[in-house]
């Protein structure tokens, strides 16, 4: 049994925070780039689910975690493409497409597992090895957390946040994506096809969601199970809304979520806290709702002042 201090001073706790924040970072970056293009991407959850399974399958097929990650990413791009076609070319309401893809994903994963193994809920994968960077890992505390306990996808997630910020501001494609989200008509009027730009943004989002799914089954755990995404795709949407479109702030919320998630997983070991683990599990979701409410209140106050 530990005390609060024991928990918060343990290296493991911080590693857990980062590990739990990582899938959220992927999901929220996917939501972010979709939002920049003006699309509410409800299909991230389903995409992550399918990609997680694809990653697990291909990692065992090739006996390589990296191959699993690669195929998971491709699966994500493919699903992103379906989402893009449905909302942009077929003009189906985004929310309905999201519902359709999520239903599809939930059933598809069970179907595939059954077809491959005969059981209906789990599939093991070849997990990603932890990376240990010599020299840097010897830095007290920081070294142990950041350079001795994390895997490739975690580092990739951090890099993606930085790259995303850069991409949106400094590349032509990034600027066009933002432009389409701001005023698609303006973009069309100077001859750039706004639909094509949106589709590209959604493909990128799909790939990011794919990486998020891959992280769950390959980076975080060593197997896939059908309940493993647990709403993270939707929380990514919430994180994006709260982050108001700024990659770093969005990633910050992802870390906050990671913190709450980590806390809910380990709080049981703290003496003096007798909250049952089921109720602790509700914490991340409650925090997300609170976050959305706080953000909405702030936005409302700011609008009132502007008028």
């Amino acid at each position, binding site marked *: 049994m530990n005390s609060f201090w024991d928990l918060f001073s343990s290296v493991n706790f911080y590693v857990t925070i980062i590990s739990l924040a990582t899938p959220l970072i992927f999901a929220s970056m996917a939501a972010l780039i979709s939002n920049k293009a003006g699309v509410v991407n409800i299909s991230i959850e389903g995409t992550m689910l399918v990609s997680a399974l694809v990653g697990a399958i291909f990692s065992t097929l090739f006996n390589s975690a990296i191959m699993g990650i690669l195929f998971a990413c491709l699966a994500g791009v493919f699903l992103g493409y379906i989402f893009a076609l449905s909302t942009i070319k077929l003009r189906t309401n985004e929310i*309905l*497409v999201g519902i359709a893809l999520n*239903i*599809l994903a939930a*059933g598809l994963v069970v179907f595939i597992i059954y*077809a491959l193994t005969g059981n209906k809920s789990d599939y093991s994968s070849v997990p990603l090895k932890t990376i240990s960077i010599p020299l840097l890992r010897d830095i007290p505390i920081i070294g142990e957390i950041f350079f001795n306990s994390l895997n490739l996808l975690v580092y990739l997630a951090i890099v993606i946040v930085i790259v995303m910020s850069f991409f949106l501001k400094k590349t032509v494609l990034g600027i066009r994506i933002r432009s389409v989200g701001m005023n698609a008509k303006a973009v069309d009027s100077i001859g750039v096809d706004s639909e094509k730009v949106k589709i590209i943004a959604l493909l990128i989002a799909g790939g990011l969601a794919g990486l998020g799914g891959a992280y769950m089954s390959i980076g975080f755990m060593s197997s896939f199970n059908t309940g493993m995404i647990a709403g993270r795709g*939707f929380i990514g949407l919430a994180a994006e809304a709260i982050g108001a479109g700024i990659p770093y702030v969005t990633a910050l919320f992802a870390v906050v979520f990671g913190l709450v998630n980590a806390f809910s997983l380990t709080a049981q070991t703290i003496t003096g806290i007798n909250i049952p683990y*089921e*109720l602790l599990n509700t914490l991340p979701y409650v925090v997300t709702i609170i976050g959305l409410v706080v953000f909405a209140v702030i936005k409302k106050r700011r609008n009132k002042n502007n008028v």
Partner: protein
Amino acid sequence: MKKTLIDFFKIKGFSLQKFIFESLKTIMAILIAYLIAIIIILFVSDNPSESIYWFIIGPFSNIMEFGELIKKAVPLMFAGIAACVIVKANQFNLFTEGAFYIGGLAAALIAIYIKLPAVLAVIAALVGGGIVAALFGYIPSKLKSSLNVNEFVSSIMLNFIVLWIGVYLISNVVIDEVSGDTATKIIPEISKLKVLISGTNITYGLLIVIGIIILVKIFFSRTLPGYEIKMTGDNQRFAKFSGINVERRVVMAQVLGIFIAGVGGAAEILSNYHRFNWKTLPGFGFDGFMVTIIAKNKPLFVPLAALFIGYLRAGADLMAFNSDVAQEVVAIIQGVIILLIASERFFSSSFFKRLLDNYKERRNHKRMDVMKNE
């Protein structure tokens, strides 16, 4: 005779042409989805013809199976009419999922711990389930109307919250220590919904949901709040312009829908379970939205859409039982159907117009090329 029939329908604003067109669109979507499923079955199954037989013909093979079809359709009808009410206001509150769950739990608890005489016990459990669900469902709806918080995300978060609360309760607080199962005590017979049609598993739940559907239809076509909800969902600017209190109607539609979903969960538990033992979300919430989409959001079509999905599921179950294809193949069909039916452009007049335009343009280009070469 034929002339007066057509006149009668004309008075009610019924357009034969439009009806046929819309039905064709639905049928096309279903056919395409089935085609995809059949291709997958061909791939996966060692004995595809048998699998396909069970899938498509199976549910009609005898009374028992047909009864299964209807039994599966009942919770879908509940979820479908619940989603219908919510979508009429153009909202997408997915707490219908959590509502089913918590409605079932609340009904079980009411039945177990509150002693009431026969009919009252059933009613109390059903209505209680609905009310508890509605109390929770009020949260995302109010957040949407007052603060414009996206009800889709907040309702999904609430689903998980309610699930964990429920799992906690049945694991600790209301657990039946004797049985050792993670579930409540046994639900007293007096509260259960009895079988309606002997020889099947169909209970009075069917009557209840049909009653609710009729009430919903009356609500929307003959009451002021129903009318205002419809107008709000169709064109909010027009609704505001006419003096309708849009915020109130948005909340009302969602709470009503959630209430119905709660009753649906209650009915499901009281019909088919000895105890409440759900440890995951049953999945009816999302399904309900699918049903209402297929039903074109018309209350009276909901039972038909639900029966179709029930048929789909029954067939998949039979196929899974009798051959080697997993029943989850239906998810693929369902996903494709929603995508196509809800699409504005699929099989629409503009769809054909654009095909025609593309064809014309290609012909013109060919002609111009020919002219250039001359």
